[in-house]
């Protein structure tokens, strides 16, 4: 299925689509308030972008420095070329300590690697502990947003899920009560977790520390009660200095949810005595993206989700319509690097309005990259026939003034004479599905101009 097909399924429920749109716009507005509170916010964006750019330009050196410092801290560092290797490494660590259960805090990387199904297949009990992630895990769905995994669900949906899985009373839909039920349920899991997995927001080369930002406290609870901590990170999470954290922590939560900072900004460098810590550094296509000058900027992403909250297409089509771990505008420029054919419709899921670029805290030129992916996808012959033919037809028309003039006349007359039901029929004119065509003018600009010249 393509993005338009999945989006059509989502928008068939107009009320829910409107609700989804408004909910995310509310988050965007909270972001604006938080951002305007800092006079130097635009300078911070530039700084963040420059720090990331510098880091990418010397990424090999920073990776080695990070590895060396992490090892000196007593942390075991692993390297994974792809998702399969990452998953194998995690399973080997679990088997090495004889663990059969795992508590996970938020990690989009492990989603990208499809770690959960792999571990479950190998007999490991996996519990996602972020509330939103737990909700979608119980529903056997994927997260639909980078930082708001269950944003596609209403409280009634969550209530029903919790009734089935956690035994909350039927019809209970109060977020306070549902969250309390999850707290009780997940506390039990934390207390018996043998191994804890976290994602990584930032990895600091000069100290070997990984930084994890959460609001719920689930990462710290999981890690600090388990014997083994496995931190899984994409290689682009590196930053050179502790001082750089000042820049990124000021940008991340403000851009993501409009909070001045996340509740917990946790720095893990060395395991507690008698416990173990592992870091898995994952490539999975990132070095390839680094080699594409037009697209390497996408590796600056700090996964705040601001581009989703602002995107008119994401807000009205939902995260699942992208069918990729990272949805929204940023997902639409990351996904073709992974599999261009499978995700060929995503760079077209945009109006190119540029709002994503405007809010991006690390100044990724998202809409420009969307446009560039479109060129490549067309060159590779991945456009659907309708788009290909339409483009061919249009280029013929625009290259021949006679045909253009004739076409204009036909359209003006046709719109006036033909019934509305025909000119706006979805089968012939998908543009008119939710729009009205303009009133046809009596004459073309060219005809009007010719008249004026005569009058002179």
């Amino acid at each position, binding site marked *: 299925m393509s993005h338009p097909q999945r989006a059509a399924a989502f928008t068939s429920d107009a009320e829910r689509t409107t609700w989804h749109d408004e909910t995310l716009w509310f988050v965007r507005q909270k972001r604006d308030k938080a951002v305007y509170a800092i006079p130097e916010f635009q300078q911070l964006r530039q700084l963040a972008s420059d720090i990331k750019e510098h880091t990418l330009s010397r990424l090999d050196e920073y990776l080695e420095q990070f590895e060396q410092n992490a090892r000196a801290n007593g942390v075991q560092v692993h390297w994974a070329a792809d998702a399969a290797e990452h998953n194998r490494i995690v399973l080997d660590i679990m088997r090495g300590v004889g663990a059969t259960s795992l508590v996970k805090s938020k990690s989009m990387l492990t989603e990208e690697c499809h770690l959960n199904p792999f571990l479950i297949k190998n007999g490991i009990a996996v519990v996602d502990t972020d509330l939103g992630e737990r909700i979608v895990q119980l529903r056997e769905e994927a997260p639909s947003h980078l930082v708001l995994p269950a944003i596609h669900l209403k409280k009634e949906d969550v209530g029903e899920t919790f009734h089935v899985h956690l035994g909350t009373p039927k019809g209970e839909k109060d977020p306070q009560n549902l969250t309390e039920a999850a707290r009780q349920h997940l506390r039990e899991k934390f207390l018996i977790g043998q191994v804890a997995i976290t994602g990584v927001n930032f990895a600091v080369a000069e100290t070997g520390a990984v930084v994890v930002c959460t609001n719920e406290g689930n990462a710290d609870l999981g890690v600090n009660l388990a014997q083994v901590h496995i931190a899984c990170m994409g290689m682009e999470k590196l930053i050179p200095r502790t001082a750089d954290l000042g820049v990124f922590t000021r940008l991340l939560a403000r851009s993501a949810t409009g909070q001045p900072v996340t*509740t917990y900004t946790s720095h893990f460098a060395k395991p507690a005595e008698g416990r173990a810590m592992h870091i898995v550094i994952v490539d999975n296509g990132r070095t390839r993206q680094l080699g594409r000058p037009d697209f390497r900027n996408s590796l600056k992403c700090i996964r705040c989700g601001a581009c989703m909250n602002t995107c008119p297409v994401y807000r009205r089509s939902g995260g699942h319509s992208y069918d990729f771990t990272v949805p929204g505008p940023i997902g639409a420029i990351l996904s073709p690097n992974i599999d261009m054919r499978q995700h060929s419709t995503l760079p077209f899921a945009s109006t190119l309005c540029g709002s994503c670029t405007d809010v991006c805290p690390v100044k990724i030129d998202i809409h420009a990259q969307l446009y560039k992916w479109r060129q490549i996808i067309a060159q590779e012959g991945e456009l659907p026939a309708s788009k290909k033919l339409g483009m061919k037809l249009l280029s013929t028309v625009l290259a021949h003034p006679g045909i253009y003039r004739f076409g204009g006349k036909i359209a003006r007359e046709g719109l006036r004479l033909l019934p509305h039901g025909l000119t706006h029929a979805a089968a012939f004119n998908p543009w008119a599905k939710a729009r009205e065509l303009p009133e046809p003018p009596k004459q073309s600009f060219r005809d009007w101009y010719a008249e004026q010249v005569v009058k002179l």
Partner: protein
Amino acid sequence: MSSRESILAAVRRNRPEPTPLPPVADFGGEATVEQFAHWLHFIGGQVIRLAADQPLEDAIRQLFPDAGRVASDLMPSTVPVDQQTPTAVLEAVDVAVLRGELGVAENGAVWVPEANMLHRALPMIAQHLALVLDHENIVATMHQAYAAVQHTGNYGVFIAGPSKTADIEQSLVIGAHGARSLVVLLR
């Protein structure tokens, strides 16, 4: 070739032209108790100014009259906690009273290094958290906070308010997995 070598080789092949690492400026800002209290209140926390002669345990008793199990190294505690304390004991702690090193005025965050935690899980597993902070240790921004902390140590956390979530329909709920409330006691 190991994955490590092949990844590093690919990075060397594909990395862009070198660009300079910019220095991080100090943007100034207001390092006041008022700003700190404003933002901590905004994110669901509470600020209490301790009188110079007021014993800490009095303030804690007033705030948590029903708390039977208090863990602290700053006042007489009812539950002794160290890094070896079993999970079951930790889980039963009502209030943890710990020292905060540094407050950040722009967002209400407090730096709590491992050395102040008794057990790494204590600040999150306790039902309620109270942090004692010297009012002179408030800085304006995260830039100044990291400059003051210098090295984040083996483990350390900026804690900004109580644990919270808005994962159900964007409704803010305080008390997700960590502490249900956070109070900062300013000395």
